[in-house]
Structures are given as C-alpha cells and as structure tokens.
C-alpha cells in the first residue's frame, strides 16, 4: 500500500502548508480585514485545525482508508462517485494556487513577463509526481522542512527591522464584518485539512499522533501569522497593493546593500517548496480519480495535468476575475468539501480493520 509516515504529515503542515499563504493571500486579507488580518487568519486556522482534529479522531478509531469507509457505508458505486467528486474538488482547489504560482513566477523570476508556455513544464513535473503516490508527498515534505525553516526564517529576519507592529493596532478596528469577511474570503486557501482524510489507512496512527499533527499545524499557522504581522507592519495601508508578498516582504532590507537582492535566493528556495506544495492537490485529485475509475494513475495524471494546463492558459489574463469567483462566489463549495464533509465522515460506518488488511493478514 502507498504509505505516508505520520512525521511526514506533520512536516506537510509545518513546512509546506504556510507557503501558499504567502503569495496573494496576505494582500487579499489586508484588503478585507485591514489591520485585523491576523484575526481573520486565526479564525481560518482554528476552523481548519478543528476539522483536522476531527479527522484525526476518526483515524484513531479506524485503520480503514477513506474509500473503504465510504464503501462500507454507501456501497462501492457511491464511494466511487464521491471519490470522483472529491477529485473534481481537488482540481478546483488546485487551480487558484497554480495561477498564483504562475503569476508569482512570471513577475518575480523574470525581468520581462515570459509567455505563458514557460509555465508549462510545471505540469510535466506534476505529472511525474502524480504517478509516484503518497510516498512522494511524504518524502518531499522531509526535504521541504529544512529548506522552509532556514529560508523562511532568513526572510523574516531580513524583513523584521522594517516592520512597525503598531500598524496592527487598534485590534478589532475593522469590526466583526472585516474579520469574518476576511475569513470567508480566505476559505479557498484553507483546504489542507482535507488531506489527512485521504491519508486515512495510509499512515499508522500511533500514540500522541493527534498532538503531533495538531502541534505541527499550529507551528505552520504561527509561521503564517508572524509573516502576516511582519508584512502588515512593513507595508501598513499599502499592503493591499503588495501582491506576491513573499518576494516583497524583505526587499527593503537588501535592495540597497552591496550584496544586492540576496533575499531572492531564499525566495527562490521557497518557490521550490511552493512547487512541491502546488503538486499536492493535483496528486490528490489524480489519486481520487484513479480510485474512482479503478485504473492506474498514469492516465488520470496525464488528463488532469493537460486540463489544468489548458485552464491556466485560458485564464492567463483573468486571475483577478478567477480570484473573485473563488473567494466571493464559490466559498460555499470550499466550505462544504473542506469542512462539512470531513466532519461528516465521523458518521461513516467503520469496521474494526480494513477489509484489505484483514485479507492480507489471513
């Protein structure tokens, strides 16, 4: 079976989860919640953390995969249909981070905006990753942790002297509407809580697993919150104009020095983590679709990546519109799939052991 280790799930949350929230999310949040952006993000983190806790509670009580749980409750056909729907959701949730990554790359890594086809090799890489299963997700998380910790800390340390944290005061200035509005519009950046549900049965639940996973999630959340605080402290009222925050946050510390934009080396390293993380929802999508159809992952991986490439080209100049649709119109889809359904999975019928594992034991 395609295994992932508990430690690797922890690293996924501690080192890879924060990175997608450092591109467009801070500016979006600053637009809605202004100086209360930390509280909006905190609401999202608490909500997502609660869902992760629920999934871990389920993991403690069963060693079945999510597919087996669905199959036990609704039968094989319904399980496949539901997996197909989750597959589509993962594709949907992958689209905005992909577009974000594309825009970040084209703006920050080039002097002149390159043709959209420059981004196409990403999908070849993603196709390769999709054929490698959960094991590759876990193992790249092992690689991502030291890269993230070192580079993220370096960028924050570079940016810290420029930050005026008084900009975050007074607390609650944007009111409940601003805080919860920001939380609602940020939902599409908070689909990570769904991953543990699909890792069910693929990792061994050990004593203290919930504490470890939630602890690492808290560490990742704290990293994002510190980043948001430094970001708003640096840019204050003009924070809403700072798209591609990751590359902007430390530029004043280095631009005028004799070393040049040395912070870009850390940013580039973090883009590597971003690349790894952008592959995850696509890998999950391929996993779901190959399970739903009952075929090896190669063909779904090819089709899904080609479709995502086509969407990326199609929406090349429509990121703002796409973002508006995702954050303002489709928030309920994200709420349903990422929050409601994982919690509902607690109601699924469980057997003591996975039927497959029982069979292999015999």
């Amino acid at each position, binding site marked *: 079976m395609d295994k992932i280790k508990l430690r690797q799930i922890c690293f996924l949350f501690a080192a890879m989860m924060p990175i997608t929230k450092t591109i467009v999310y801070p500016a979006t949040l600053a637009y809605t919640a202004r100086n209360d952006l930390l509280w909006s993000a905190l609401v999202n983190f608490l909500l997502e953390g609660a869902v992760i806790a629920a999934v871990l509670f389920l993991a403690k009580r069963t060693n079945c995969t999510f597919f087996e749980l669905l199959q036990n409750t609704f039968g094989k056909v319904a399980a496949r249909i539901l997996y197909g729907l989750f597959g589509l959701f993962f594709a949907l949730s992958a689209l905005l981070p992909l577009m974000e990554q594309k825009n970040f790359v084209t703006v920050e890594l080039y*002097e002149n905006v390159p043709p959209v086809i420059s981004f196409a090799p990403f999908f070849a890489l993603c196709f390769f990753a999709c054929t490698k299963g959960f094991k590759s997700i876990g193992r790249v998380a092992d690689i991502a942790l030291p890269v993230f910790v070192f580079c993220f800390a370096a960028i924050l340390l570079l940016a810290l002297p420029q930050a005026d944290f008084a900009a975050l005061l007074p607390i609650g200035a944007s009111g409940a509407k601003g805080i919860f509005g920001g939380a609602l519009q940020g939902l599409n950046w908070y689909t990570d809580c769904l991953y543990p549900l699909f890792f069910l049965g693929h990792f061994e639940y050990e004593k203290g697993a919930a504490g470890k996973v939630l602890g690492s999630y808290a560490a990742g959340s704290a990293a994002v919150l510190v980043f948001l605080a430094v970001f708003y402290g640096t840019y204050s009222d003009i924070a809403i104009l700072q798209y591609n925050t990751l590359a902007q946050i430390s530029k004043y510390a280095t631009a005028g020095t004799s070393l040049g934009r040395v912070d870009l080396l850390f940013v580039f390293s973090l883009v590597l983590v971003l690349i790894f993380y952008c592959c995850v929802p696509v890998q999950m999508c391929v996993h779901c679709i190959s399970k739903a159809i009952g075929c090896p992952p190669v063909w779904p991986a090819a089709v899904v990546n080609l479709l995502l490439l086509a969407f990326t080209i199609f929406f090349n100049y429509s990121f703002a519109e796409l973002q508006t649709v995702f954050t303002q119109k489709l928030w309920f889809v994200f709420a349903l799939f990422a929050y409601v359904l994982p919690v509902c999975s607690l109601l699924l019928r469980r057997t003591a052991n996975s039927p497959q594992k029982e069979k292999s034991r015999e």
Partner: protein
Amino acid sequence: MEKTKKRSPQPFAGEIEKDIAAVKEFLPADDILVYRFETEDKKACAAVYADGITDKELLGQLVAKPLSLSPAPKTAQDARQLLYFPETKPAKDVQTACDEILAGNPLLLIDGIAEGTTLGTKKVSLRAIMEPQTSITVKGPREGFIEDVKTNMGLIRRRLKTPALRFETMEVGRASKTAVVVAYLEGIAQKEVVREIKDRIGAIDIDGVPDSSYIGKFLAKKSYSLFKQAGTTEKPDILCAKMLEGRVAVLSDGSPIALTLPYILAEDFQSSQDYFVSPYRATISRILRTLAVIVSLFLPAYYVAAELFRLQLLPFGLLMTISGGVQDLPLSPSLELFFLLIVLEILIEASVRMPKYVALALSVIGALVLGDTAVKAGVVSSPAIIIVALSGISAYTVPDLTGTLSVIRLAYVVVAGSIGTYGILLFTALLAYYLVSSDSYGAPLLAPFSPLIRRDLRDSIWKADIYSLDTRPAVLRVKNKTRLKVRNKEKNG
C-alpha cells in the same frame, strides 16, 4: 557451472596419448602445452597446462620431480599422495579437467590410470598492492584492491577475522568464466539482500565480464538510472567498514573495484579520512563537499539565468563588472556556458586518456590558448571561465559523483537558458521527485534526509564522535544493530 562444451562427460581412457588427444581436441589453442616426463620405472606421465597462467616451477618441483623419483603409482589416489603439493583434485572426465586447465590448474595424467588429477599451481602476473588513484587519503590505510579476486578476499579476511565473514563464489560469463564473489557478514547483512544479489548474479547470462561495473549494471534495479545504483570502492578498509555496517560486497575477478549494496547517495559524500580525523574536521569537510556540489550544479545555471532573466539577483558592482566583460560577445550566456562546459568535459576526457609525455603541452594549450586567448579574442567572457572552472573543480570534491554531476550540470544550463530560474527550480523538483522515489535494495537513495532517519543523521553531513556511532545505520534495516557495546567514555576519557 557451465562446462566447456555441453555434451555428456567423456571419461579418461587410461591411455596417456589418447587422453592427451582428447584434451587437445577440446582445447586446440597453441597456449595449451603438454609437459611429458617419466616415472622411475619409465611409465609415461604428462601435465597439460595453459601457458602464462601456470606456475611451471612449482609444477616441476612439486609434481614432476617426486613422480620421476618414484616407481609408477597404481592409482590416481596413490599419485596424489606422492606429490609434494596440497591443492590437488581428482578429474573424472575430460570436460572438468579442461575447465580446470583454463583456470590455470594443470592436469596430471599417468599412463594406465583412467583418472586425471588437477593441480592448484595457478599463477597470474599481478601488480603490487598499492594506494588506489581514485581514493587517496592523507591519513589512513593505503592498501587498495588489485585485479586478483583471491588477493582481494585475503585483504578483507585480514581485516575481518571472524567466522561470520562469508565468501560465496559464483561463475559469470559464458566465455570469461569470471569468478564473482559475494562477501558479507553473516548475522549482520540482511539475508533478503544477499539472496536477491545472488539471484541476480545467477541470472546473468552474458559472454564475458571484463569488470565489476558489468555486474553492477545487472544488480541495478533501474538500468537506465542517472544515478549510481551500487556503491563502489577500491579500498579494503572502506569495504570492511561498509560490510560492518551491514552492506553486502560484490568482488569480481579482474577488477580492483568492489561493489557495495545497498547504496545511498550520502555515501559518496563520506570519505574514509572522515573517520580518522576529529568529528569537527570531518563535519566541516562534509559541509564543504555538499556546498561544492551545490556550487558545481547551480553556479553555471544561475549565472545564465541571472544574466538572461533576472539581473536584479546580482549585486550592482558585480553586474557592472560582468556587463563590461560580456559586452560585444557573439554568444548568448547560455551558449557561452554550454560551450565552455563542453570544452571542460573535453579537457577532462583528454587529460585522462592522453599519454603523460604530452600532458604538459596539452595543459598549456588548454589553459592558455583555450582560456586566455578565447577571452582576448572576445569569444567568451572572463566571468564565464571563472564560473566554469569553479564548477569543474567543485565537482571533484565528490569523485564518485563527477560523471552524474557533469550530466546534470549541462541539463541545468539548458533549462536555465530556456526558462531561467524557474526552469532551475522545476528541474531541481524533478530530481527531488526522482530521487525520493528511488531505492537500492530497500534503502531509499536520499536517506537519511528523505525519509528522515534521525539516528542516521549522526553520520551524514554531520559526523558525530565514535561513541555516538554505536549502532549500525537504520536505513540498512539490519537485525544486529549494535556496533559499540560498552560506552566507556568516561573510563577512556
């Protein structure tokens, strides 16, 4: 064991001329010679041997002399008792005898006895045991393997005087009949790994095995892999250390290079000297090697990407210097770097193969004509030459990876020239996915970093002191984990 000719065994006739003729029919080559002599009572005897690989002096002194001074023996068993030589074997049929002759062991025939005797007087000209050119150390043992597998086995046995040391010899190659030895420590090496290695070697059906690297290709699970699939060493001390960790060694007759399995990438960043110097020095050396590999891989590519796509990355002063250097160059940065890297590869290839007496002339041509003159002529820029030289030198800090690094470096320059920094990052991610999904006999190639094995990190980039290395590497999943039994640090310290 494959016999010389696959037909039913032909017994000896007991008539010396007929038996010699039968052997010569199987082995008609000119180097198969017959040495005829007589016993004291004038009975004809003969030794059939392969010239050049048989010790003729031993044959005369220990075989012909005692027989010529004694009356003719009645049986082959009696004859063997007369000899002053311990390594004798009965040969019942002509085919078996021929196999032994080809291996350098002469066949003794006595008229009237329908059984031959093979004599272990094999002698091959060997070079002396010396320090291998590929792994020279300042401190530590200087012995290296040679081309004779028996000598190499002796070098290992000298270091591991334990009954747990096992040598299992197999014969590979229809024509070469090369002895391939699987060496391991019983109770430490994983049985499954030993079995799989033996199965794979047993399944090899090839005409000849000139070197152990041929065996390495068959032991690899991905024969098209960009990265090595087996560790290699020319030094018995390194091999013994690896066997003590739980690895299995494969030695091949005719090759001074031993293979070790399972293999992980971190092995190549270690040097035997790391274990003879202080852990601080060893750690610094390993960090330097890692940085050198990063420089070797990324520097040319980043230079191209920075020049083509992202000039902001370079400090202003450096940017001005480079701008001055690259002004009016006919080649684009990527072509310039690619061209220089190819020149570097050609120089390396030529310096390895060229006769030593032209080395100086070629070095002058390489350094002055190609380097200095090319810059003066405005074909390439000085920064590019500095970068390629630094990259080339850095790759040699990890000699076992040089070949792989040079291929990847060229690929990096191509992607950097095509789509810049993003290409470099994507290619890095691709390598990461490739490496994390590769393993060697159950050991992940990127261990102990991915999957993270905390215990093994003590001997990765960081080299802990000897007391901390009390267990065998967890990545090898050996059952006998303990290396250092008593932690008497205080007592010793």
